[in-house]
């Protein structure tokens, strides 16, 4: 009998919930737990895909929760995070979520590094001091930094070998937490998981290598027996079984290299489903059906079964069965999903328009997987990417986010789970993803085993290489102010233009390869600019090439024309010369004939002879003329050639002059604009410089005053010198109108005064004091633990006793007492009996509620009703003037009480310890809930100016609630430790809070954000605070466990006056320079 649960998770890691099926690593889990017990940390490293995360989440965590790790408390809080793009934020988010605290405040605290994380834990409700013995409330803390390599793989965390500030702080916090936990034996433990190929990069962080060496666990490869457990045990636990032969053949066929476990888990997941969800024994036939083994190994009967099944498969699936092996299972599975995604989309994505064809569906999947992977230092790695980015890369009108989501959903179903986030079958809304959703490949094993994805990866590598080459050319052009010299030449242009047309890049694609640490918005802006530059570069290069070609064509045409004209001229001249020559020759022949005839007729006539000679001479002349004409024609031809060359040269010169002129014009315009911009920038910089100068000057003065205060606090010189230093700091502030560092100065004043023994604590009685009160005359009232009341005169002057009332002295010790005024007092003794005392009348009345301890009391504005609240929830109201002090009203909140406050004449606000604020009208005994904050603890409250209630939470936070409207006015983190008490002073408007780290913070109620004045534990001599009160002059009085009453004036000028009276001199400039040196704070 099996369950419906599949005991094999497939490609994704085991979750904690699935730990019940996680087997094979029992020994390693025990070893890691041992490291945690002994060293408080384990740095788990191993190859990609060896199951580090599964081992932690499904192995170590459930085992320690089950109590198999020796620690302090029974329960555990697990704060786990992946560094992602901001490790500190990820840590803070998980911490605040698991420890129920405000993320922003946690983040602010964690930014301080070092002990911050430990402090937050120690101040939480989950840490209980061993002495308190409340072990069912305390929880051990386990911090898991999973996929720690993201510190190095995300450029936001680590760029060009330099880690970000957040990365430094996160690592500092984790290492310091381990260090402090070891020293203080705190129940805090830290686990890191990281791919081992990043180990060498860890040396960038100080101390990290030492800690790794101190407690490293290198995940071993599973042995045969352990792989057998991985295969067989989950099926057995789920009530199924695996045949021995299947186990042996799988073990044998598994590669011992990368991805052994993810490939195995993925195959087992498919096998389980193929075996009718484990109802049949998992066997060889099932492995054959998932393309994991050749059918040669099947028996004849099994082979028939297989063939019958195989014939029913669609044709496109056959090819995946051609090379069956365990590693082919993932390839076949992903390939089949790729080819059936379109039909799945048509049938299931009801929300998406069906405006794509099957080829576009495949194109979407290709883009998705190309976007979700990248090459980093020659490693194929995952690359998280949002749907918006992917849709942007596809960049087609008919493909929207809904289309992308619908097409890839087949990869997100629980049975396939190759892309996360997965679809939750119980939540239909998880089928549709918004554009902001980040997608991620479930495991890198897919990158290495899906053959189609490997091809896509190679294409992407080629794209990236071409993109880099193109960028280099383009940047050269951009950096030379777009000089045409750097435009692409014809051949290179053709190459990159082809690249551009085929790969169709856009800003989203460029964004993927932006490794800078800029914000996402800036990166997108840069990618957009880059994209536009690319387009410009290509277009302008194309134009330049075309212009060049046009010009070349024109030159050739002109040359051809000139040549033709010349040839024609040459032919004409030559023909004429030739014809003349022929004429002359003909005439010469004729003359010769005539001469011959004359010779023959010599004797006939002498005149005829002379004529013949003359004709001969004429012919000679004609021949010479023809020769000269031929030479002239040759010369004309040469001249024509030279003229043509000259014309060409002139034209070229004119062209370059025009180009130069155009360039000069552009440059001049550009330079004018640059000059304008530069002037504007210079103006702005001047203003900025002036403002910076003012700021620097002011901050320099603050720094001087601050440094003096800090040095005085740090006991720099002799005690008197310290007084001089704080006095000088005070004067510096006063003269320069500085108030920024009043809080620091106040603290330094108190330190130096205390160190010079200028504060005189009041040691009024040897009897332990239970509580005290200061009346309007500044007389001090003491109630001792043996129930004695003593009144002293005005305590700011010489103190002496006025009266002592001994009649209430009792054997029982006073456990808790509260002065209502100098007239009334309530208290509870160690027998848990509670009393009311009228001091004037010297009457003591036993109150109606017994067996519980008074927690808080408050008198109404008319003084006629006194509301008293008991620790365990009972509240009553009495009339203090009624001799019997019988209850006017009674109410049981049934919750622990933190505080009660009387409001007006007949109302009271009750604050419970679990953060519920109730308004109680005790004339009609009606209760209204005003405020309730889940999972928070409250400790005390005080009324501010009768208008607001300041409610203190145990985590140090104070919330201000408007009494009349019940709405929240604001809040602030007043203390990093638990607050014990809160008091408000009408005169100074200070809210004083006492915290468990023995400090008092004075918060200015008019400016709650301002840094509070602090009276720290040194001034209180490290004694816990029992009670705080103000006198009518705004002096704060504090009763500590040492039985002293200490008091401090809250006005900083008071101390300066005292120093002035003491003739303390101001430091000279020389002394200041000597003290400060180069160390300004």
């Amino acid at each position, binding site marked *: *009998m099996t369950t419906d649960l599949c005991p094999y998770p497939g490609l994704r890691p085991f979750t904690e*919930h699935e*730990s019940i099926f996680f087997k094979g690593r029992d020994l390693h889990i025990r070893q890691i737990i041992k490291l945690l017990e002994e060293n408080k940390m384990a740095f788990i490293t191993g190859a990609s895909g060896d199951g580090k995360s599964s081992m932690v989440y499904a192995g170590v965590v459930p085992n320690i929760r*089950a109590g198999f790790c*020796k620690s302090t408390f029974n329960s555990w809080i697990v704060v786990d995070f992946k560094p992602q793009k901001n490790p500190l934020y990820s840590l803070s988010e998980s911490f605040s979520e698991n420890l129920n605290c405000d993320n922003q405040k946690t983040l602010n605290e964690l930014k301080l590094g070092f002990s911050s994380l430990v402090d937050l834990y120690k101040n939480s409700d989950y840490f209980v001091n061993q002495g308190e013995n409340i072990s069912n409330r305390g929880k051990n803390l386990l911090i898991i930094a999973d996929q720690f390599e993201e510190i190095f793989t995300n450029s936001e965390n680590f760029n060009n070998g330099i880690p970000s500030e957040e990365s430094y702080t996160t690592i500092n916090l984790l290492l310091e937490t381990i260090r402090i936990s070891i020293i203080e034996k705190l129940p805090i433990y830290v686990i890191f998981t990281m791919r081992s190929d990043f180990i060498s990069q860890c040396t960038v962080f100080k101390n990290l290598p030492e800690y790794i060496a101190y407690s490293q666990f290198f995940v071993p490869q599973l042995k*045969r027996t352990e792989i057998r457990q991985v295969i067989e045990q989950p099926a057995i*636990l789920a009530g199924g079984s695996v045949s*021995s032969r299947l186990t042996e053949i799988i073990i044998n066929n598994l590669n011992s290299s990368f991805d052994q476990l993810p490939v195995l888990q993925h195959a087992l997941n498919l096998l389980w489903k193929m075996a009718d969800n484990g109802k049949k024994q998992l066997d060889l036939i099932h492995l054959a059906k998932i393309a994991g083994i050749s059918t040669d190994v099947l028996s004849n009967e099994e082979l028939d079964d297989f063939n019958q099944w195989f014939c029913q498969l669609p044709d496109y699936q056959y090819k995946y069965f051609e090379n069956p092996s365990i590693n082919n299972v993932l390839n076949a599975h992903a390939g089949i999903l790729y080819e059936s995604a379109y039909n799945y989309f048509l049938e299931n994505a009801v929300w998406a328009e069906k405006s794509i064809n099957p080829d576009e569906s495949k194109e979407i999947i290709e883009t998705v997987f190309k976007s979700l992977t990248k090459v980093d230092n020659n490693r194929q790695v995952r690359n998280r990417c949002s749907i918006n980015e992917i849709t942007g890369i596809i960049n087609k009108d008919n493909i929207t986010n809904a289309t992308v989501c619908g097409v890839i959903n087949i990869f997100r179903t629980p049975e396939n789970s190759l892309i996360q986030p997965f679809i939750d079958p119980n939540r239909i809304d998880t089928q549709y993803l918004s554009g902001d959703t980040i997608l991620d490949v479930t495991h890198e094993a897919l990158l290495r085993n899906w053959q189609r994805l490997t091809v896509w990866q190679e294409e992407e590598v080629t794209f990236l290489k071409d993109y880099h080459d193109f960028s280099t050319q383009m940047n050269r052009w951009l950096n030379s102010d777009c000089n045409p010299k750097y435009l692409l030449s014809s051949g290179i242009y053709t190459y990159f233009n082809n690249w551009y047309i085929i790969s169709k890049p856009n800003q989203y694609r460029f964004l993927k390869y932006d490794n800078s640490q800029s914000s996402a918005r800036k990166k997108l802006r840069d990618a957009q600019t880059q994209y536009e530059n690319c387009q410009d570069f290509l277009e302008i290069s194309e134009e330049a090439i075309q212009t060049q070609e046009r010009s070349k064509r024109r030159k050739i045409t002109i040359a051809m024309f000139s040549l033709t004209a010349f040839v024609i001229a040459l032919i004409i001249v030559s023909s004429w010369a030739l014809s003349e020559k022929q004429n002359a020759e003909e005439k010469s022949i004729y003359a010769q004939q005539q001469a011959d005839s004359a010779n023959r007729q010599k004797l006939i006539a002498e005149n005829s002879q002379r004529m013949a000679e003359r004709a001969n001479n004429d012919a000679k002349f004609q021949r010479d003329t023809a020769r000269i004409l031929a030479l002239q024609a040759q010369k004309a031809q040469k001249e024509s050639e030279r003229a043509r060359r000259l014309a060409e040269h002139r034209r070229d010169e004119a062209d370059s002059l025009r180009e130069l002129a155009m360039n000069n014009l552009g440059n001049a315009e550009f330079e004018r604009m640059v000059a304008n911009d530069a002037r504007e920038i210079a103006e702005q910089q001047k203003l900025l410089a002036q403002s910076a100068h003012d700021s620097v000057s002011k901050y320099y003065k603050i720094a001087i005053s601050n440094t003096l205060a800090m040095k005085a606090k740090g006991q720099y010189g002799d005690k008197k010198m310290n007084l001089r230093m704080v006095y000088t700091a005070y004067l510096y502030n006063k003269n320069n109108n500085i108030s920024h560092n009043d809080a620091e100065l106040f603290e330094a004043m108190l330190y130096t005064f205390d160190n010079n023994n200028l504060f005189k604590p009041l040691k009024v009685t040897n009897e332990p004091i239970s509580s005290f009160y200061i009346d309007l005359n500044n007389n001090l009232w003491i109630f001792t633990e043996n129930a004695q009341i003593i009144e002293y005169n005005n305590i700011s002057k010489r103190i002496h006793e006025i009266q002592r009332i001994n009649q209430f002295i009792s054997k029982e010790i006073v456990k808790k007492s509260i002065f209502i005024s100098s007239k009334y007092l309530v208290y509870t003794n160690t027998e848990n009996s509670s009393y009311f005392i009228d001091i004037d009348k010297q009457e003591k009345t036993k109150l109606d509620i017994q067996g519980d301890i008074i927690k808080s009391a408050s008198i109404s504005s008319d003084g006629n009703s006194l509301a008293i609240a008991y620790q365990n929830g009972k509240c009553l109201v009495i009339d203090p003037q009624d001799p019997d002090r019988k209850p006017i009203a009674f109410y049981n909140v049934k919750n622990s009480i933190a505080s009660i406050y009387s409001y007006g004449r007949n109302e009271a606000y009750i604050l419970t310890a679990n953060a519920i604020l109730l308004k109680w009208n005790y004339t009609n005994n009606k209760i209204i809930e005003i405020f309730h904050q889940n999972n928070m603890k409250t400790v005390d409250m005080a009324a501010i100016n009768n208008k607001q209630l300041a409610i203190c939470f145990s985590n140090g936070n104070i919330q201000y609630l408007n009494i009349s409207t019940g709405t929240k006015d604001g809040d602030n983190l007043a203390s990093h430790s638990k607050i014990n008490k809160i008091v408000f002073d009408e005169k100074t408007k200070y809210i004083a809070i006492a915290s468990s780290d023995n400090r008092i913070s004075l918060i200015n109620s008019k400016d709650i954000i301002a840094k509070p004045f602090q009276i720290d534990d040194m001034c209180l001599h490290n004694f816990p605070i029992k009670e705080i009160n103000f006198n009518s002059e705004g002096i704060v009085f504090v009763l500590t466990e040492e039985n002293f009453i200490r008091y401090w004036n809250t006005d900083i000028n008071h101390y300066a006056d005292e120093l002035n009276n003491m003739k303390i001199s101001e430091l000279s400039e020389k002394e200041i320079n000597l003290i400060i040196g180069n160390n300004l704070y």
Partner: protein
Amino acid sequence: MFLNLYTQQISVFLASVSPDMVNFRQTLKSILVKAGLSVIESNENGDYDTELNIMKNTDCSIHILGNSDIYNSNNSFASTHYKIAKDLRNNNYKMFLWNPLGYITENNKYINEIKRDIAENTIYSDLTSKIVFVEDLRSIMNTKSQVTSKTEKADILFIFNSLDHDTSLEIVGMLEDIQTIIKLEVDITTNTDYAEFISRQIQNCKLGIIYFDYAEDWAESFAQQIWKNIGGNSSKVPLLFVANSKHANTENFNQLKKIIPLIVNEKSILPLDIKMYYDNILENNKK
């Protein structure tokens, strides 16, 4: 110490081989000796019983698969040794079948039949490296003997957290009148290996109970890990997860057949509820 030093003495029977594998076998023998294993061989002159007696005195056997069919043949020592090992494997005797060629040709097609015949305690390998093969063998055969705690027979194993010490003892006190109980108080500040003890002790009981009142954070995780250690849905002994109604959250057990959640409203009738479940289990076991 996280290292396995392989100190256990392992005796390996190196079965006879076909003539094409004689040299190969000789090399393997030397490597086995170097790995600290004791190698036993046949002198190839005995009958089935003689060979059986030799093999019985070893922890496992190695059968190198060459070109002659040892699966269908009856007349070679190699096939006799293969058959004896098959008979012995039911008694936890391990047989290692090794095809050092790493692939199957026309000459050794019989290996497919051998593969189909693989059953429990059979290890098939087609690794080509002798060293890796011997390493695997040594690691499979070296199972560390653990120091085990003493267990005893009882009806019920009653487990509770030290936070619930008082109420648990009260319930155990009432139960002890009707059943034999072994009670186990889990104190997480000690070094006790509770998982190991429980997984062995529960085999001597008919029912395991995990009870909690205050320790709710611990109980659910603990019950899941114990369920896993005792065999999950295939376990012979069921676990009763007894939760106080205030804290009960048993959703995660819905699909785990051998964990029965029992929500308690009234502590005084809890022993009767447990008795009822116990009787049901006995009844079902008889069926």
